[in-house]
Structure formats: structure tokens, C-alpha cells
């Protein structure tokens, strides 16, 4: 019985292509704070792979950042990983994978398959690509909010995500802004969740409020979108319901912006907590979240409301909070019957390892 070696390849299902696996790093350039997402997949498998023992390994420079093993079966995709949050093991002489310079990301699949004759034969495929780290990049949220006060003294806010050219944010053909909201009543030192159907919204029917309330999570968070909307975007393409414009990121970026103007009165002080996430809705990186910003709106009985950036939480380029993710998934399930789009596994990208 011969154990696994790279040289003993078994018959693969796609023998005519030189390489089927792919790897991408998105964005391909950023700062040490950038969330680099590595995706790898599309690896070939033996035609009969049910008796294989496969594994996919991902490394950056000489750091091992990910390993996906499977007891038996076929394994073609590693998935997508945020290098900022992936546990990694680096050799003693390896610099940080976020040190300014060019870094090499490598993914390889290795497998050992039980053949009809009772022997094992191995297969192997390796692809790699590079990404660049620079000392710093402009912050897309640098001018992320502008406050306006109307004639009645109430605040409204314009949220803007303005990515720099080429570096720091994944390429995206349409950057949308999705907002979650948590409405809480402040009674003394306690805070209480205020469900939609217990608050007075006199411009919508009770049935409509029930529909919206069904999108409220146990953490009192909901996606800030009408139940009837075609999408949860604040700056989408739906006339009237969406306001603002969606921009793009990449070599020739354009800003994405939206506007909001909460209005609420109550016998208790109300606090609305908003999380705005920039989301890639079109292009090869569709499904990726590109950053988030937090703002709040507070209104006391008998006074007009005040909007401001959330002093407790700063904007960043990481993915949504767990509370947002839960609300987003719930909105999609309740309103559409669908699930969040997964970032796409690349079908091309990278080169065969030397």
C-alpha cells in the first residue's frame, strides 16, 4: 500500500485543465488593519472520491492560517476567511502577515484515496496568490456621518461610505448600506426592548406592524426595512423606499450614501441604536460586508430627538456584529424565504504553486 505523495496522482475528474483550484485575497491591498478575506476552492477531486481522506490547508508566507480536514469524502472548497480573525500558527522567523510588503497566500488540497484494489493513492493541488500591505489607507468612514437639524429642531443624518481607490476595500460594483436598529425604552436605569407592535405607529396598519415585528430578534434588533421592500438596502434602487445612492469600490470608486430621520415620541426616554453595514451587492465579491458604522438617536419625553455617532463604538472595516447578522438572516427568512448570500468561492484566481 502506498501512502500519500504528491507524485502519485489518481485520475481526476477534470484532467484537461492545468489547474482547477483558485485562490483570491480580497481586497488585494490594504493596511495592517484591513480585513483581508481569503477564499479558496474549486479544487479537483478524483472521480470516485467517496473513499478519499482529503484536507485543504491555507497558509500565508510561512504561517499556517487554516486547515480543513474531512474524515472521508470529497472536498473542493475551503471557504472564505478573514485573516484578521483566523487563528494562525507562524514559524519563529516569520514576520506578521500584516507587515507592509507583499505576502503570498497559498492553498493546497491533499488527499488519500482508497482504490478498488485496496491500495491508497494520493492527489495534490496547490495554488497561490499575493496581497500587499501598506502602512495606511484612507478610512472610507472618515466622513461617515453628517448631521442636519430641521426647522423643528429634529436631527437627521447622512451616512456615507467613501472607499479609496484600489487599496483597502474589496472591489465591488455596487456597495449598499444595510441598517439595523434596536429601539429601547429607558426607564430609570433599565432598558426595555420596544417591539414594533407595542409602539404607536399610526401610519401603518396593525397587520403591517405584526409583519415587521416578526423580523425583530430576541436581542431586540431588526433590519430597518419595510416588509414590502425588494431588498434591505437603505440606498437601493427602489423608488421612494430607498434614499441615497449606491457607489462602488475598486480602481475607480464612488461613494455610497443614505439619509435617515427618526421620529419618535414616548412617555419614556427612547434610545435607537443603529448599525450601518456596507455590503457588496454586485460583482465578484457579492455577499461580502465591507465595514460598519454606529449611530444613535435619543429622544426624551417632551423634547426633540438628537442623533449622533455612537460614542461607545467606532466605525471599522470588519464584518457585522453578531446581532446584525442574526437580524439580517431573520429578515431574509421572514420576508423572502431566503438565506444570506455566502461570499462566492472563486472559480478562477491565483497561479499554480511553483
Amino acid at each position, binding site marked *: 500500500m502506498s501512502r500519500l505523495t504528491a507524485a502519485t496522482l489518481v485520475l481526476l475528474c477534470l484532467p484537461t485543465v492545468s489547474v482547477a483550484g483558485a485562490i483570491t485575497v480580497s481586497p488585494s491591498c490594504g493596511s495592517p488593519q484591513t480585513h483581508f478575506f481569503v477564499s479558496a476552492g474549486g479544487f479537483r477531486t478524483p472521480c470516485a472520491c467517496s473513499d478519499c481522506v482529503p484536507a485543504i490547508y491555507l497558509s500565508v508566507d510561512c504561517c499556517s492560517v487554516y486547515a480543513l480536514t474531512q474524515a472521508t469524502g470529497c472536498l473542493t472548497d475551503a471557504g472564505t476567511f478573514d485573516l484578521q480573525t483566523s487563528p494562525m500558527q507562524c514559524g519563529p522567523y516569520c514576520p506578521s502577515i500584516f507587515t507592509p510588503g507583499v505576502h503570498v497566500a497559498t492553498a493546497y488540497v491533499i488527499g488519500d484515496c482508497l482504490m478498488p484494489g485496496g491500495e491508497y493513492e494520493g492527489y495534490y493541488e496547490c495554488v497561490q496568490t499575493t496581497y500587499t500591505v501598506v502602512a495606511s489607507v484612507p478610512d472610507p468612514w472618515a466622513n461617515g456621518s453628517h448631521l*442636519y437639524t*430641521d*426647522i*423643528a429642531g*429634529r436631527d*437627521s443624518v*447622512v451616512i456615507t461610505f467613501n472607499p479609496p481607490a484600489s487599496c483597502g476595500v474589496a472591489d465591488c460594483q*455596487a456597495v449598499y448600506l444595510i441598517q439595523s436598529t434596536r429601539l429601547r425604552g429607558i426607564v430609570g436605569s433599565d432598558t426595555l426592548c420596544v417591539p*414594533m407592535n407595542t*409602539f*404607536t*405607529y*399610526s*401610519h*401603518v*396598519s*396593525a*397587520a*403591517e*406592524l405584526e*409583519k*415587521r415585528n416578526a423580523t425583530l430578534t430576541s436581542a431586540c434588533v431588526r433590519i*430597518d*426595512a*419595510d*416588509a*414590502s*421592500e*425588494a*431588498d434591505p438596502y*437603505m440606498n437601493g434602487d427602489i*423608488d*421612494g*423606499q*430607498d*434614499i*441615497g445612492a449606491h457607489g462602488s469600490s475598486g480602481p475607480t470608486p464612488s461613494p455610497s*450614501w443614505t*439619509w435617515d*430621520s*427618526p*421620529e*419618535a*415620541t414616548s412617555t419614556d426616554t427612547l434610545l435607537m441604536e443603529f448599525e450601518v453595514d456596507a455590503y457588496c*451587492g*454586485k*460583482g*465578484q465579491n*457579492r*455577499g461580502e460586508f465591507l465595514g460598519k458604522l454606529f449611530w444613535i438617536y435619543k429622544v426624551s419625553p417632551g423634547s*426633540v430627538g438628537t442623533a449622533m455617532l455612537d460614542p461607545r463604538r467606532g466605525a471599522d472595516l470588519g464584518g457585522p456584529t453578531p446581532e446584525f447578522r442574526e437580524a439580517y438572516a431573520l429578515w431574509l427568512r421572514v*420576508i*423572502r*424565504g*431566503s438565506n444570506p*448570500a455566502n461570499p*462566492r468561492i472563486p472559480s478562477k484566481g491565483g497561479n499554480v504553486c511553483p
Partner: protein
Amino acid sequence: MTLMLWSAASWPQSLSPYSAFQGLNEAELSTVQVKLGPVGNRLGKEYVLAFTSTMATLDLSVFAPFYRPKFMGSYALDSARPQSFAASPQEVAAVIESVGAVPSIADGGVDSNPGLSFAMSVVKGDTVRVFESMLDTTDARLLFGRLLGALASNAAGAKQVVLYACSRGLLPGPTATDVTAQVSVVTRGFRKDRAHGQYVGKVRLTNTGVLAIPAPVVVAFFPGENITLVGSSGRTCGVWPYGVPYIEIPVGGALAPGAHVGAVLRFENPDDAPISFAPYRIYAGPGFH
């Protein structure tokens, strides 16, 4: 983006009775603006819907001097981008006549629990006259019904009104009937048609029930993000799944028990993403979707 802030000088001015808008001549009709806006606590993406004559340019600033001080916060959306459409002077006249027949709207009052502001402006001579009625959900539903009747020949306008009413759960009539349980659906595809660059699939509906399914029969489903159903008949609002495209499947007058009908579905899918058909719903007969 431009946010306008109104001058506080010289307001509020007095609102006019509804009768000031009845019997307008052609020139006056061409200056009429109609505005719908939310009142009270807001949630979600509220906006103002307005329309005016095809001969006029929308200018909501004329309403500002007539704002009711008690509801100033509700008027904030006037200064943001309103959603608008155009109507002919004849359609505007039809709206005025039809709505005027509902006393609880034409009274120009404030209902006990108002949620919708219905306002109109007109220029008579050199004077701007403004009417406003603040409606509860019952009157708002009546208003939407009157607007849809008067704007029946204005497809773009009617679409906007339906969306505005639907997003508040205030459609002035029933939704179409869900007949999913008595329809068997088989799909084939969906593959890329390289000649057109579109994805193509087939859907076949069979009436497995004992009753005929009345036309129109529509299939509603969410094909996926950034995927467009070509030739879509519209987008759902009042029926689940919400906010998804639907397409009418031609069945003649009805789909008889045991009968089947098929259709080709085409999609724009620039990301080459997987197209999903489930979950879907089949709706039949008259009603909103």
C-alpha cells in the same frame, strides 16, 4: 444631496377648505400639487409621495407656510427627496372630484389618531391655497382607493400609489388568492443561453385540485441577489414572499383541473450566481400582489 430648510417666517398661514379645489379651471388644475406624507412616529424608510400636473414642476416648498405647528416633525420629509409622478390635469380633476366625495377626508380635519397627511396646493391668481387633511388608517385606506380609481389610466402613478399604500399595510382591497397547495410545479434548467447571455429555465404548472384556477395566475419567487427575472409582471408587496418579482403565466380564462401550462423564464444573472426557485407561491384571481 441637498437638504432644504424652510424659512420660519410668516407661518402658519390658514389652510383652505376643500371647496377651494373644486371647480378649478384648466390653468388652475395645471398648478395643483397633491402630497401624501406620514404623520407621527416614523419607522423604516418613510417618504413623501407627491404628484402634479404634467405641465408643472413639483415644488413642495409652497406647503411650508401652511404647516400645522403641532405636527412640524412630520413635515421633515418634505425637505428630503420626495417620490413623485406626473398626472394629467384631467386625472388631477378626477382625483379632486373622487376624494371630495368622502366627507371624512374632505373635511380638512385631523383624525383622532392621524397617520397620513393628505395635502393639496393650487395657485389661484397670485395666491397659493393649501388644503390638508390628516387621516387615520381607515380614512387613509379610503383615500388610496379613491386615488387608484381616479388614476386608473395612469399606470406609473397607480403603481406608486399601490406601493405607498402597501408599504403601510393599507391596500384598499384584497390580495390575490394563494393557490400554491393545488398546483404542482416542475422546473427545468436553469442554464446559460450563451446566445443571449441570459439564463433560461422552464416552469410547468399543473392544477392538481378539483376546482378551476382563475386567471391571472402568477408565480412569485426570489431568484437570488442581483438576478433579474426578465419580463417580470411586477414585484410583490402584499403577498409572501414580499418584495420579489412575479410573472404571470398565461392560462386563458382559467386553468382547469388536471390541466397544465408552461412558460419559459429568463434571467439576467451577471454574477453567474445560482438561481433559486424555492420558496415560491402561486397566486390566482383578482387582487393585489
